[in-house]
Structures are given as structure tokens and as C-alpha cells.
């Protein structure tokens, strides 16, 4: 079967790739484009380890087909830091031990960034709701919640 030719933007750069119909966006990112920062946990939309944004909307890339990326703009963890400068969420996560094994971390960071872009003053409950689709088996979540709230406060006062 012929592969599909897809034109898209990834982390601000125009990217073209070939993919099979059934390949997910996550497969394409990891296997075709070598962007392995997005992780595959469950492959069924239950863990959020594969979180990316498509045109600014937070999605599980394991539930999006590669072909659906045609003409859209995808942001992944690899695009979160500005060169050598970590995003404040990245900085806070590593300072506050909001990560342990780190396999869930790219997903949490992408999801948290997307929250703060929509709401720079979230309550703890709002943080919990927004991150409800991201599982972490290591940290116990508390340090993740604190980090997101702290970064929100820092960004507001900046």
C-alpha cells in the first residue's frame, strides 16, 4: 500500500513525512522522525505519556493518526525549551523532584504548559482536573501539583 505524504509543522519547523494509514502520530514522531521524547505508556489514551499539542490543543498522540497531522502544527516536548533555556516548568520539575523515572514527565510538562497558557492562575482543583489524564506511578503527584502552582505564581509575578 502506498504511504501517505504528510506536510506539517513540528515545533515551529516545517516537516514532511511518509506514513502508513494506521500509524499513529506517536509512532510517526518516535519511529519516523526520531522524536522519542513523547513516550508510549498505554497506547490507549489512558496515561498521557504521549501528550502533544496539535494547533495548541492538548491531545494524546497515540489516539491521533499520523495522516491527521496534515496541515497542522504539532508541539512536542523537544520544542519546549528555548535552546539551552529550560521552560520554567521544566526547571521547576527538576528542582522540586516532580519527576522520578521521568517516563511520564514529557506528558505532564506538555499538559501543564497547555494549562498555564489557558489559565495562568489555576486553583489546585483546576490543576488536578487538567492533569487528570496523566498518570504517574512514581512521584505520588504532590510535587507535580506544587510545581505547577509555583510556576503559575512565578509567571504571574514576572
Amino acid at each position, binding site marked *: 500500500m502506498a504511504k501517505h505524504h504528510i506536510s506539517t509543522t513540528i515545533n515551529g519547523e516545517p516537516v514532511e513525512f511518509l506514513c502508513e494509514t494506521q500509524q499513529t502520530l506517536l509512532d510517526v514522531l518516535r519511529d519516523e522522525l526520531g522524536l522519542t521524547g513523547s513516550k*508510549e505508556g498505554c497506547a490507549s489514551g489512558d496515561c498521557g505519556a504521549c501528550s502533544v499539542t496539535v494547533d495548541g490543543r492538548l491531545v494524546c498522540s497515540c489516539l491521533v493518526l499520523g495522516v491527521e497531522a496534515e496541515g497542522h502544527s504539532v508541539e512536542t516536548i523537544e520544542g519546549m525549551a528555548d535552546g539551552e533555556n529550560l521552560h520554567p516548568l521544566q526547571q521547576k520539575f527538576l528542582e522540586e523532584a516532580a519527576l522520578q523515572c521521568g517516563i511520564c514527565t514529557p506528558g505532564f510538562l506538555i499538559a501543564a504548559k497547555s494549562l498555564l497558557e489557558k489559565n495562568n492562575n489555576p486553583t489546585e482543583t483546576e490543576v488536578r482536573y487538567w492533569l487528570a489524564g496523566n498518570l*504517574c506511578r512514581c512521584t505520588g503527584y504532590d510535587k507535580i501539583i506544587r510545581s505547577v502552582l509555583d510556576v503559575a505564581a512565578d509567571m504571574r509575578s514576572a
Partner: protein
Amino acid sequence: MRKESPPDNNTARADLIDKVTGGAVYASDIRVPRMAHGRILRSAVPHARITRLDVTEASALDGVVTILTGEDMATLAQIHWGLFLNDRPVIAIDKVRYVGEPVALVVAETLEIAEAALDLIDIDYEHLPFVDTAAAAIAPDAPVLHDVHDAIADFYFTGQAKPVAGTNIFQKFGVSTGDATAAECDAAHIFEHTYTFPGVSHFALEPHSVVAAFEGDDLTVWSGAQSPTAVQKVLSRVFGIAVANIRIIVPFVGGGFGGKASVKIEPLVVAAARKAGRPVRVTLTLAESMLTCRRLGATMTLHTSLDKTGKILSKRATILLDGGAYADTGPAVAAKAAHRIIGPYDIANLEIEAKAVYTNTVPGAAFRSIGGPQAVWATESQMDEIADAMGIDPVELRRRNLLPRGGEILDTLRPLDADIGDMIGRADQAIMNLGDGAAAGIAVAATDPGILPLGGALVRVLVDGSIIVMSNSVDIGQGVRTVLREVVAKMLNQNPNSIQIANPDTSTTPFDWGTGASRSTVIMGLAVEDAARDASDQILALASSVFDGAPNDLRLVPGGVAHGDEFLPFQDVYHRAFGVDSGEVVGRAMVTPTRDGSDFKKSPLFWETAVGACDVDVDQEIGTLSVTRYVGVADVGHAINPSGAEGQEEGAAVQGLGHALFERLDYVDGQPVNATPIAYRVPAIGDIAKRAHTVLIENGDGPGPMGAKGMGEGGILPVAPAIANALARRYGIRIRDLPLTPERIWRALRKRGDDAT
């Protein structure tokens, strides 16, 4: 000579930065040239003889490289492998023993082709009677899963399993002191209760992933393995390859918790690579990882006698563990459960028997504090039941029986090195600080980590002052790299940022037993400390030939060596000593049971202790329970990486919350009905207590560097019984079976209502 120079700053926590930028390479990210992809056909039946396995059509599919089946096993040096019993074939041969057991492995050019080929494999079974509970497995007429018990001694843990011939029992372990029966005759009260703890999944978010590649006789394996040298040893036996020709590389590991300890899918993937004649990668799905291993379920009956003042006179316990289809490290789990069910109490008369049995279910394996959560669930639930029945406050009942620091839980074990009474006091205080008064439920625990003090390390001080630490301790998220870096930085008086911790790689790095049982901070911590001391001695000896001074006038300072206020960078020391502007110093060390200055003869090396205190709220209409406040207390000796240590305790507590409220691998007719990430519920962010606090006690009295004890397992122990005790206190219902599901709570509330009217 120059003045002291500022240290370089080039490798600042590179591993952590990689984890937040997506740059960290995990086992599942490994790709090697010419790699083919494997998918596994798994048994759909619990117990059967394979009567036909036809791969002709599947093999003919374009892009299929090869298909591994039981027929290929004849050429192995050793067909069955294990950690205590050689009971597990590399892939099913003639027989399957649980739903999920690998029966064929398709290797293909792409995953999609491998997947498609699975559907073309023809397999017929002759069904055999099966057992999917431990109770059924020990019934007199139960089908026996394994005809022979090939027990091997001191293979991975010290000791040997004691299977019972002709039965499903693969381990029997007893503890007996004093005379429990006689003590019961003098007792004022005797309580007997039975508690159950189900099999639960590790649910590490990164599934098992292995790449295996042969180059001539040399085998390289990339695996998310917690015990690289155990993998190496088993592969050596199974494939008849010298240990030196097997290289195990462990990248970052996306969660382990014991589920990637010892050996898991590595022999299978290596067999496929050998047959395929090219590198093979197998990355399981999370659902497949759930069919690979789990915590052993347990049924525990406690028979406890007390005098009229509430002093415990005796305890008898029977522990029946569901070990699944293959023993794995189940024999050690049984032995530990028998110790861990005693609790930190002064009990003169004990009669404990633990049995682990084969069932036609997912193999049991190590999981954070082996046997601990099961045993502590029973013991600490019963303490509250006894207190309630005798009209004594539950904390007071514990205080009447607690061992002091230095007391002996068993006279064969090291005396207790923590003050549990003080820990309870701190838990009380901390929960009061969260507001709304005292805790509704508490539980305490003391467990004996099964640590083998055997592990080595190298510390290489390079010419420019950068340092590489080579250790086989695996970064599974516990922060071992940060700890080792701190230890070396301190010993060599160098900036932590100049120190890199290399990935575990058996070809370059000394033996270490493995990463688990809370041992790395202590054992690997001491190994790198000793290796750093060795490096320091060598550097100072070199420097003494350069400076006009004896080694003891010299000292290491960041970037080099100082003599008075003179400073010489490492580079200049090496240059003058070696005659060339190059070279390095290699410090080495091997920690063994006879290490100088350590008392490793008695087990455990330290006690892992925990107190949990909580309050709960139940929606009585629907039975859902939420934990409103939670405090965990741990005695860690010294927290080398404080926020990391706190994170370990918090993470452990939330796993305990999952075990308490949600988790159970369910079997119906031999079928695992919820072994998928959709159906199996682990704690999500909304489930954790809104108000929580962790207290770390640091007295610097542990055997590790700077007085550290191992940690990271204790926090899981008290959670379930603390919650059940709070539920009993607040709502008057006692539930003895985990998890505390809404249905169980709702039914208990209804029953309580009926009793009341």
C-alpha cells in the same frame, strides 16, 4: 603554582535535564541498525497441552524474518531457567500454564507485519484442569503445574526454596520461637482473623523493552533491567555463552518497582535474535507487561493471644501466597512475608508458616517491599481489631507492645535501629499540624530488607578534573545518580557538577547484585565512597612526589590538590607525575560481606521502618472513600538527597493508596479480566490526599555513607491498614479484604445499618 581555581560547571545534572527535555534515552527508545521487531503470541488458555502449533502460513508472510517456538528450545544449553527453581522454559514447550504465556514470537521487518503474522499462526490446545486461586492449588485433588521441582541454591538470593514434591507448593518457610501453644493456654484473650491481599500489577508506565544483538559470539542486550548482572548470569547459562561475552546495557528505566528485577523477557528476546541472525527488539505493551509479572496475592490468618493488660503473649500466622505459574523470586517473598508479619513488637512466642504455591495465573515476582504490604495489612489491621475488642486505644495497645530501639524482633536478626514510639509521636504531631485534630487510623511497620552486600564501582578522575563514576546501579527514578554524585563529591571534595554517572554496562563496570530492596544508597553508596577514597589516596600519593610534602599535608580541593595555599590542578599533578599531559587515576572498590569497618554479618543491614497516619471521608450513598489527610514517617538515617527521599516516600504511599482502594488483578475462570491499562485502575492525580506530609527522621545512624539507611520501600507499608483502621474508627465497619472498593464499603455500611436496627 596557581591559586585555587573555580570548578567547572559543565555537566550539571545532565540526566535530570535530559528527563525534562525529552532527551533521556529509555530502553524503549533504543534502536540499532538492521533491527527487526518481535511480537508475541500468548496463550489464551490457563492450562493446556499444545497439540498443534503451525506457523507455516505466518512464516510465508512477506516481511516475516523468523518465528520462534518451543521447537527451537532443544538447542539451548539450559532450557528451563529461574531464580530459585529452574521451572520456566524460555518459551512454552508442549504446555502452557497461564493466560499470557508466550507460545510463539514472530520476528518481522516491521511491527505491523509481526502483528499481522500473529493472526496466521494456528494453535490447538488440549485443555487441562486449572487452578486460579492459591486455595484451589493446595486442594487435595488439584492439578499439579510442575512435575519436577528443580531447586537451585544461592543462585540470586542466598538460600534455597523448599518445595513439596508432588504438590503445587514451591516454597515453605517457617519461623518458630518459644511455645505459642503453651502461651495461648495462659492467655486472657485470643483473637483469630483472616485477611486477604490480592495480586496487583506493578504498572510501571514504561513496559518491558529489550533489544538483543549478536556479533559473532558476543551478545549485547539493552534492557530496562533492574539487575543487569542477574540477566547476564541467566543468559550465560541458558545460551552457553561466557559471562565475559555478554554485555548488558541499561539505559534509563521508566519505572520498575521490582517488576523489572531479576530476569524477565531477556532470554526470550535473545533466543529470537539468535534464531533471526540479526538484532531483535521486543517492546511489550503495558497490557503485556501486566501479563508478565505481578505482586503475589496473600491470604493470612493470624492467631494472637494477649494477657489482660494487652501484652501480646503469642502470635501464630499462616500465610498462603499465590505465586502464579512460575516461581521467579516468590520463595524470597514468602520468607520475607514471614518476618514482616511479626511487626515491631515484643512477642516471645511465634509460630509462623508461609507457603507459596503455583497457580495458573501471571507469575508472581518482587514488588516494592516483597511480602511487606501483604503482611503489614494483616498485622496492623488486627492490632486495631484487638484494641477495639479489648477497649484499649489502638495507639496505646501498640505502645504496650512496641520494641524499643535495640529490641529484637527475632534473635536471628539485627536489633531494631529505630524508635517506632517516637515515630508515632511525630506522625501524631504532623497530622495535627494539617488541621482537624488527631488521626483516625494509624499503622506501623518494620521490615528487613534482603540485601546482599556485594557490589563494586570505579571512580575515574580524568586529566581535566572531570570525573566518571561507573556503577551498575540502575536509575529507575529513585535518584541513585544524585545520591552517588553527592557521595563522590563529598569524598573527593569536588563540585558535584564535575561528576558524571555512567549508564550501567556490564562490559565496563564491576559486578553489582542489582537495584532493589532499598540497597543502592547503602551498598553502592559505600562502593563509590570506597572507590573515591582509593582514588583520593592515589592522587595524594602522586601529588606528594610533586609537592615537597608528605601525603598528609596535602588535600583535595575542587579541581586539584592543595598544599597550604598552593594549588595544583589535576592536570599538572598528572603531567608532572606521568611526564605527559595525560592519564587518569582509577579508584576501585568492591563491597563484600566482609568489608572493613562494616558489620554485614547480621541481617538486615538496617531496618526499613514506617508509620502512616490518616483520616478518611466516605460518601455513604455510594461507598467511595477518599483520604483527606495523610502523614508518612520514615527513619532514613540521613537523606543524602532530601527532596528525592521525600518523593520516594510519597510515591510509595500513593502506590499503597492504589493497593488499598483500587487495585486487584481479577481472574474469572482462569482469565485475567482486567489486565489492561483501561480496566485496571491505579491512583490518578485526583485520588491523592489534599493535605499530606512526609516526615524524614535523620539520626545519621545508618550503615551507608553519611549515616544513610536505605529507603523507598517503607512508605508503601502502612497505607492500607491505616486507611482500614480509619474506616473502622469513623464509620464502624471493618473490612479484611483488599481493595476497599466502593461496593465492599457500601455493603459493609448496609450490614452495619442492619445490625444497628
